[in-house]
């Protein structure tokens, strides 16, 4: 197993585990062996021949990147023979490499430059003209390739093959003519294509956006986090003179394994967008008047207080966001719960509760588990870096993959077992799996019929196969997407987790994989109507008082986000503060939401981009947002990391605005100096965050402690909505969707899909629709145009519609967060 082998490198002894490569062993004791083609994530290859070393008792020089350590090996990396070889190989490498360094974007951070300086020959002996190849040509709209600079190390093609597993980028032709290319010169535009820019050891693959904009040494690099999905990948934001320049990876094996997706790398144009809210405005006599942000914050707080005094604390509400940082959300929790005294806080439209009945697994556990069970999750579109991690686990670590979903996903290709339940039948499907596991465990079973194929579309036999796979796995990592579950299914899922955990000798953990930056943090910070921070139920007044001081627990039951809209429509809710959320687009039934918001006497929108909701607001506050803000976020693995500021702004930071609101109403104002002062406070008050501090999250972040699940009762199967007109609607997440973050001018705009609807063959036959036809989705008196794709992506009786754009207005079709029915029809012929 972990047998250590002793070897000697340059007379220095080192002891490394069996199977370690010589180049890694040398790195351990600080001896550098130059490499080009070797990359620790891509494994040994040995084509650049740069890492030649002398090993005693071996007749020839050997490559340190392919040679594993042997007992009593004696390696020399600086002998005259090695130096001659290094110089020779570098001479060959440089033979046809153009002298572009002064204009090359890699200049200054180029391994070829560095190695040439350290190990290269002093002079060139090449007397012929260098080979001419294509200079800068677009490999995709975001990557430019310069084939002259390529040294054919094949890092990028191996990345495409091993990591991304698309084999989209390949080595064409052979010998001296070989070049990196794609099939038929098609653009190389996978979801993770940008990583080849980082791993290219020369300037052959460059970021089209960053090309020639700045030299690498001129950049101010800030070690920050990606703020798109729930992975919170580590990245470096490079800026110059306070202008955004580029995003690079910042490898953190515990989170991103050294990669970021293209949305992280190229999707940051919104930082300098024209649609940003940069100043605070107040609606006075039908006109927006600009004023000082903190002054408007004070006024807002006072108006909220006035409404509370007049109509009671139930008349105000807060819709937060899974995109804010923990500090901002924590302060909002304080403002609304303690200063204004309401439990009306929420950040989402689906139902979820904090805490898990099993261990909270981190990303690394995906690799160390024996089985990954994906429930309702489509990592490729929702959490790209988790997708890469699962692919790695399945193909290279021998982990098995079982999928329980209502739609086909990209991972189905490599899954050991993939079951597709009918859209909307997730609760029964989960109960069926739980029951077939519970059958042999003598645990209380979920009551009701679960095994009938007509209910879920999954045969009992298949479900048993899945149960068998889970039962024999020994270590299971469940990855589920709470946002894709309908109705109260989340309780069934937590029941299922509990059942799996009760299997003898079973290690089970889960990753609640909601596709938003900080939805875990939002729940932990108590932006929920029924939970205080740290998963303390608001009905548990004893515990609330214990943590927050006597009298902190509130009598009223809070309203969820959708209930707040209901109450606003009926006039019971008078004021609403919307923080970085866009209910008009992201909540079901736009017409109703709009009319409800218009009825409010006070609508405060605190956001970074102008949205359909901010247009309706009576007060608009600017939020800084990713790039400008700082604070901690909690990723889906429960890891708390620090999002550093990348660019400076004149605007007040969000935490200052919120604390101004709190302070203008409270008798004992607390002045926070930095965002870390808030972190310090929340680490003391929020259960699970006690070890989070500026120091402990510095480099790799820190996993917050597990939050216990509150519910232990076996849920019942809810009423099945079997009647409805037309087909069941399932809205699928799309990574590159045209929204406020990626607008039409984004470099990723080529990824935007047209409005599409995916049908099962049977339904398509019934409706007389075929591939490529125009069709109309109708419900709620709203019609959405889409192109038909007959793809069997879901079981019959449902239609899957990817959410490709905000303009599409998909949520207008639905009424609630459970099953919605739509009619699919042919457009009228004019």
């Amino acid at each position: 197993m972990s047998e250590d082998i002793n070897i000697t490198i340059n007379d220095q002894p080192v002891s490394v585990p069996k199977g370690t490569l010589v180049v890694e062993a040398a790195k351990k004791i600080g001896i550098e062996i130059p490499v080009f083609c070797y990359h620790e994530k891509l494994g040994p290859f040995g084509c650049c021949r740069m890492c030649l070393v002398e090993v005693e008792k071996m007749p020839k020089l050997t490559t340190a990147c392919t040679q594993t350590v042997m007992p009593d090996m004696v390696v020399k990396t600086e002998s005259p023979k090695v130096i001659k070889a290094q110089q020779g190989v570098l001479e060959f490498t440089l033979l046809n490499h153009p002298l572009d360094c002064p204009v090359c974007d890699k200049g200054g951070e180029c391994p070829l430059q560095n190695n040439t300086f350290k190990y290269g020959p002093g002079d060139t002996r090449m007397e012929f003209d260098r080979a001419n190849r294509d200079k800068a040509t677009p490999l995709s709209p975001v990557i430019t390739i310069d084939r002259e600079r390529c040294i054919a190390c094949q890092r990028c093609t191996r990345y495409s093959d091993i990591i991304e597993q698309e084999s989209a980028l390949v080595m064409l032709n052979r010998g001296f003519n070989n070049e990196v290319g794609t099939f038929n010169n098609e653009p190389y535009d996978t979801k993770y294509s940008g990583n080849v820019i980082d791993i290219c050891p020369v300037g052959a693959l460059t970021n089209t956006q960053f090309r020639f904009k700045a030299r690498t040494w001129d950049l101010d690099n800030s070690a920050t986090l990606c703020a798109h999905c729930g992975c919170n990948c580590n990245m470096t934001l490079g800026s110059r003179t306070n202008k955004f320049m580029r995003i690079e990876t910042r490898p953190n094996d515990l989170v991103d394994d050294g990669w970021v997706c293209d949305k992280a790398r190229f999707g940051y144009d919104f930082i300098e967008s024209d649609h940003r809210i940069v100043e605070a405005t107040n609606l006075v006599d039908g006109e927006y008047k600009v004023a000082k942000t903190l002054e408007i914050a004070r006024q807002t707080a006072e108006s909220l207080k006035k409404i509370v005094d007049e109509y009671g604390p139930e008349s105000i509400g807060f819709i937060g966001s899974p995109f804010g940082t923990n500090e901002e959300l924590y302060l909002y929790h304080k403002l609304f719960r303690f200063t204004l005294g309401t439990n009306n806080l929420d950040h989402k439209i689906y139902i979820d509760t904090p805490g898990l009945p099993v261990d909270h697994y981190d990303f690394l556990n995906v690799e160390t588990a024996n089985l990954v069970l994906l429930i309702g999750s489509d990592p490729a579109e929702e959490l790209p870096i988790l997708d890469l991690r699962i692919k790695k686990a399945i193909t290279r670590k021998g982990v098995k993959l079982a999928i329980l979903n209502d739609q086909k996903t990209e991972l189905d290709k490599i899954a050991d077992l993939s079951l597709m339940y009918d859209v909307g039948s997730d609760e029964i499907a989960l109960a069926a799996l739980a029951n077939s596991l519970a059958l042999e465990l003598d645990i209380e079973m979920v009551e009701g019929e679960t095994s009938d194929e007509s209910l879920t579309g999954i045969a009992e036999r298949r479900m048993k196969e899945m149960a068998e796979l889970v039962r024999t796995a020994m270590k299971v990592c469940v990855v589920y997407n709470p946002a894709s579950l309908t109705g109260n299914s989340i309780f069934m899922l937590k029941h299922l987790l509990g059942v799996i955990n009760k299997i003898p000798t079973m290690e089970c953990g889960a990753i609640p994989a909601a596709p938003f930056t900080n939805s875990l943090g939002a729940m932990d910070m108590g932006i929920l109507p029924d939970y205080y921070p740290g998963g303390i139920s608001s009905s548990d007044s004893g515990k609330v008082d214990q943590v927050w001081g006597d009298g902190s627990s509130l009598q009223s039951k809070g309203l969820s986000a959708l209930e707040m809209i209901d109450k606003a429509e009926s006039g019971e809710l008078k004021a609403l503060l919307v923080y970085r959320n866009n209910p008009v687009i992201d909540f079901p039934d736009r017409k109703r939401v709009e009319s409800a918001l218009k009825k409010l006497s006070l609508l405060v929108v605190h956001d970074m981009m102008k949205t359909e909701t901010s247009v309706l607001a009576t007060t608009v506050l600017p939020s800084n947002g990713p790039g400008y803000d700082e604070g901690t976020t909690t990723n889906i693995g429960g890891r708390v990391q620090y999002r550093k500021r990348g660019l400076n702004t004149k605007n007040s930071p969000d935490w200052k605005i919120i604390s101004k609101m709190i302070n203008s109403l409270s008798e004992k104002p607390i002045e926070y100096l930095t965002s870390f002062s808030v972190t310090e406070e929340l680490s003391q008050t929020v259960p699970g965050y006690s070890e989070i501090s500026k120091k402990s999250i510095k480099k790799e972040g820190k996993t917050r402690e597990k939050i216990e699940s509150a519910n232990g009762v076996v849920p019942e199967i809810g009423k099945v909505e079997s009647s409805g007109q037309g087909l069941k609607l399932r809205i699928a997440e799309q990574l590159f969707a045209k929204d406020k973050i990626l607008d039409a001018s984004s470099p990723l705009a080529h990824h935007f899909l047209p409005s599409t609807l995916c049908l099962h063959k049977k339904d398509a036959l019934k409706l007389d629709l075929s591939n490529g036809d125009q069709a109309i989705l109708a419900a709620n008196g709203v019609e959405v145009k889409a192109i038909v794709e007959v793809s069997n992506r879901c079981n019959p009786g449902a239609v899957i519609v990817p959410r490709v754009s905000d303009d599409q207005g998909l949520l207008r079709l639905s009424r609630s967060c459970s099953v919605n029915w739509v009619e699919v029809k042919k457009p009228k012929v004019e």
Partner: protein
Amino acid sequence: MILKTFDGVKHLLIGLGVTFKNLFSKPVTFSYPEVKRIMPERYRGRHFLNRDENGLEKCIGCSLCSINCPVGCIHVVSAENDPDHPVSPGERYAEVYEINLLRCIYCGYCEEACPVDAVVLREHYELADYDRDKYLATKGDLLVYPEPNEFKVNILGNTTRV
């Protein structure tokens, strides 16, 4: 006594000898500003940016001058050339090129670092002005050279007229 007087006169004459000698030699001073000194070829005065034989800017915006500048007085912002209307040969050019002449110590490192011999320090030494803002030499200021631009910088940093 007389001997002492002679001695005094002798020493006086010796002293005045230097004065007389220089009274009739060519003066080393110039009556500036009517007459201007011709500076040696390697004199490091004001900076200029060269153009190549096609009239394109030689500067490719590589920023090596700015990174080598010991006082950090050079600011370069580069941009990609439009292939149809190139500003410089090659792929990139300097969109902004500014030298703060007040901060500059005229060490000539920029000239030495330049891989394309674009920036040079020439013999212009009349740099006095009343306005501090004028010392921020922009690309427009630097590209104007009062004489034909035909000179070369060799490997030692020597500027020679061609």
